[in-house]
């Protein structure tokens, strides 16, 4: 592992990401718009569930942030698929860079971008939408990092098993809606149908939102995030294991 070369790859991938910032702007602006529309509903739901002083942002901000973070999974997959489309994948592999260095160069800039997006949405939630964080800010940070870890693992899994960019985007969109919906991002799990409540713990988004809820609404300390953080990391470990099993640098990917 040569860190100097990894930094070269990371810088270049950051430039590639910034060459077309429209998707990044869209995935940051859209959840803010959705928060505006859904805050009133969130307030009503929280009041009915024993949080009379809540602004509604405590439910809506983490929900939208998590859902759109799932959409961001496409950044990492696209970073790999586009190399195939541009014909540069073999050039990269024929350079001195190792597979690990190339992968880190692709993953870390996107992961950093997703983390910044998450922090920005929570910051706007506090400043603009009046979200109060009653518990541990450190716990909030831990959950954010765990979110990014599982999303990176998920993106690697999709990159490993899918063959085309179209498949990638279709699965990312579907997974974002299903994981976020069942996990409680659109409405609290308590109000979901019985079958959805049963399935909810199978969604990593459920554990992300449980962790956020513990520190934002329930005055939880750092210790309150241990179980949801651990559950999230178990998902990440499983996805990473499958990704490493299935990933092959010589697989042909199609950029459509």
């Amino acid at each position, binding site marked *: 592992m040569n860190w100097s070369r990894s930094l070269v790859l990371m810088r270049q991938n950051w430039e590639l990401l910034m060459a*077309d910032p429209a998707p990044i702007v869209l995935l940051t602006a859209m959840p803010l718009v959705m928060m505006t529309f859904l805050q009133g509903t969130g307030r009503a739901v929280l009041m009915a569930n024993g949080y009379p002083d809540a602004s509604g942002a405590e439910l809506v901000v983490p929900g939208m942030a998590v859902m759109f973070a799932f959409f961001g999974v496409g950044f990492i997959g696209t970073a790999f698929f586009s190399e195939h489309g*541009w014909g540069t994948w*073999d050039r990269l592999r024929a350079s001195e*860079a*190792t597979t690990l260095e190339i992968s880190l160069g692709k993953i870390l800039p996107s992961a950093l971008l997703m983390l910044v997006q998450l922090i920005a949405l929570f910051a706007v939630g506090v400043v603009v939408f009046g979200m109060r964080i009653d518990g541990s800010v450190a716990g909030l940070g831990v959950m954010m990092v765990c979110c990014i870890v599982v999303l990176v693992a998920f993106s690697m899994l999709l990159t490993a098993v899918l063959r085309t960019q179209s498949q990638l985007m279709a699965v990312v969109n579907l997974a974002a809606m299903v994981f976020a919906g069942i996990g409680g991002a659109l409405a609290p799990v308590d109000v979901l149908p019985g079958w959805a409540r049963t399935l909810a713990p199978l969604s990593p988004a459920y554990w992300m939102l449980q962790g956020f809820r513990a520190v934002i609404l329930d005055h939880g300390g750092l210790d309150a995030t241990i179980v949801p953080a651990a559950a999230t990391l178990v998902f990440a470990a499983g996805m990473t294991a499958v990704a490493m099993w299935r990933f092959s640098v010589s697989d042909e990917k199609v950029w459509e």
Partner: protein
Amino acid sequence: MLEIKGLRKAYGDNEVLRGVDLDARSGEIVGLLGPNGAGKTTLVSIVAGLRRADSGSVRVGGVDALADSQTARGLLGLAPQDLGVYPVLSVERNLSFFAELAGLRGRTVRDRVVDVADALDLTRLLGQRAGTLSGGQKRRLHTAMALVNDPKVLFLDEPTVGADVRTRNQILEVVRRRAAAGCAVVYTSHYLTEIEDLAATVAVLEAGQVIARGRVVDLVAEYGSPALRLTFDGPAPALDGFEVSGPVATLKTPDPARAAADIMTRLNGSAARLRGVDIVRPSLEAVYLSLTGRRSNEETPTETEEITDELVA
């Protein structure tokens, strides 16, 4: 600089490389020829670390490329057959990225970028996004990206496909200069005249094996044979020693000029129907075709020396 011995590779039951032996010295340009599917791209891919070999050995600059691919890759420059550039980045950034990836930093990167850009007439395009370049400009950038790390062994896989005459000449000139600077160049092409222009040695790959290796003149002397070709108005007459096919009669002979003079006296009544007398000089293409039994490129002309109708008249 490059030594390949007994290289084998199979995809399932399909054995693509069947014990390839090939070497290239420092400063040598090797024209790697062969029909489609002969195994050229697989061979290049294995040396560049993109595919694993089943058996055999590859040494690049003394480094075992199969055991220590990373070090060997550091000595290589590769321009694959298909264009590979970052369209959203500038020409300068496309070049500097691969220079930095090779471990160059700071002023050295700038100097290398300037050098290769100058060699391939890309200097005025350095600030332009690669996606906005013309086809020929992209082809030059694609080649420049393989040169920017100052490789010891350079693989160019059909570098002039789709290139205009100017681009082609620039690429050929850069190849000559790289070789003159001591680089071993493996140049894959279907344009056999380019191999001759480069004064390259030749390796003919057919069905996964190198079936001929050497200088063009030596291969032509060994495998080629000059011929006299007569073209008639109507079916060619039966002539002693000639192969007749429709209106054309061909005689393979070491001295076709003398044979032409001789045959004039024996044509008799057929002389009035004679429309053309060609002396067919043995060329790399003729050798290639006789070795592979296939036509490599319909557009590549056979070298002929036409004696013309007035000689007959």
